[in-house]
């Protein structure tokens, strides 16, 4: 077991070292916080002026968005690397290594996540504070941070699953974009799910998206969507289902590759 962990921890360490050298994307993502929180603080003010009931507390909504965006932006877009490796045929060389391709990619992505999450978290905190002039109760922040990290790891695994679809689709961007937009709505990226019609909330409950975004971030609102205990249970369920889905799709991809060639 220790050998297993050590082996894949090496992938994570290499990814961290690379991320340290290539910080441009991270700065870009931090700049995105400034933009998106600026846009939405303005949007929520406008919505409050227009009488949107939920916008009675625009500052809570800005912090909610800061938390959901922190989770989304911290998860590395690993599907792009996997897609490129498959398109170029490089994946064939990686499959020959004496390690699991999927676990190695996931370990690298977790390394990136470990590097990005603290810096982006700081950017989110500072931007949200700058736009609202208010800080939520520290107890709520203390709950959001660990759940946010776990949710970002689950999201990374979902990106990995999306990337593996490139074995069949060549370009997984549309699947990624669709997943991202579903996450916007069914996860409650911009608006808490409580604002959406009942039917949307029911559909959302059948997907992992609320567990990834809305539920962890809702601790920053007056009424949280779930209790911490329920969120632990939901995260565990979706982590298991994602692991099973990853194993299944990778087995099918290997078969397809063996039959069709790289």
């Amino acid at each position, binding site marked *: 077991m220790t050998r297993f962990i050590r082996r894949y921890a090496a992938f994570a360490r290499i990814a961290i070292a690379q991320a340290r050298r*290539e910080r*441009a*994307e991270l*700065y*870009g*993502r931090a*700049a*995105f916080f400034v*933009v*998106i929180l*600026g*846009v939405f603080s*303005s*949007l929520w003010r*406008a*919505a409050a*002026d*227009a*009488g*949107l*009931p*939920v916008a009675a507390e625009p500052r809570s909504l800005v912090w909610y968005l800061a938390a959901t965006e922190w989770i989304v932006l911290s998860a590395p877009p690993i599907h792009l690397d996997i897609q490129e490796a498959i398109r170029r045929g490089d994946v064939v060389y990686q499959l020959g290594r004496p390690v699991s391709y999927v676990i190695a990619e996931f370990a690298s992505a977790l390394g990136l996540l470990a590097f990005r999450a603290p810096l982006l978290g700081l950017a989110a905190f500072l931007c949200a504070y700058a736009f609202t002039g208010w800080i939520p109760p520290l107890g709520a922040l203390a709950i959001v941070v660990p759940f946010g990290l776990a949710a970002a790891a689950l999201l990374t695994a979902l990106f990995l699953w999306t990337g593996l679809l490139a074995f069949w*689709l*060549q*370009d997984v*961007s*549309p*699947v990624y*974009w*669709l997943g*991202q*937009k*579903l996450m*916007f*709505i069914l996860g409650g990226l*911009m*608006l808490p799910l409580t*604002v*959406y*019609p009942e039917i*949307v909330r029911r559909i959302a409950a059948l997907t992992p998206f609320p567990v990834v975004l809305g539920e962890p971030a809702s601790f920053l609102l007056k009424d949280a969507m779930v209790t911490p205990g329920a969120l632990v249970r939901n995260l565990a369920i979706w982590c298991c289902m994602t692991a099973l889905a990853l194993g299944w799709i990778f087995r099918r991809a290997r078969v397809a590759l063996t039959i069709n060639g790289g």
Partner: protein
Amino acid sequence: MAAPSNGLAFARALVATNVKGALALRGAFVLQVVFMALNNFTFFVFWWVLMRRVTTLRGWQIGDIQVLFGIVAAAFGLAVTVAGGVRHLGRFIDEGDLDTLLTQPRSVLVYALGIRSQPSGFGDLISGAIFIAWSGQVSWRTLPVVVAAVVASALIFVACGVLFFSLAFWLGKVESAARQIWELLITFSLYPEPLFGGLIRLALFTVLPAGFVGYLPVRLVHEPSLLHAAVLSGGAAAYLALAVLVFDRGLRRYASGSRFSTFG
């Protein structure tokens, strides 16, 4: 020097070849088109939910947002379908992939832009057209104005892409950062203009021209006038000229990748 008509014929041939290439993988093509269109409609659910609760947002109604969405989606779709290479320009420059194009008797920039086509762009084009039709703010009489607005917006998208990704000539590996700046342009252009004021509004008509990509085309569609048309076409021409200038300057600094490869 090649005549402009030759250049246009060349660009047309590139697009035709790309479309044929995309259609060769028909299943993947259809999937990408459908998924992209679904993606755009899914994103719009946010506005649908919000505007059900507030009918106007600083003077903007749901129909105005549909026109904005439609124009930006169709313009982006047109840009990545015809000039899909723009998204890869940073990597071409950084990894020395322009080598093969430099030996061709055609404009390197036109070749680099037209060498790839994004099939999902058709999904953007289709969903853009549906958003515009759905808004109820466009008639057959104003259709030419809508088409002109979409084309101008697409040209600015391409010009901005060239500008941002050409930074690779000076800064090296900037693809993801340039891509993010390009996506910021899209992000800003999808929100109603009255949300932004002061310095941000100034930035949105200069360094990050979401104003030219989304707001001005919408104004042109709402109130067709020579002034709006002149400002929009002037803006498109200026950004295109700047993009060509910056790319040409950068090309002088370009370092070969010493690659022996075929392109396509």
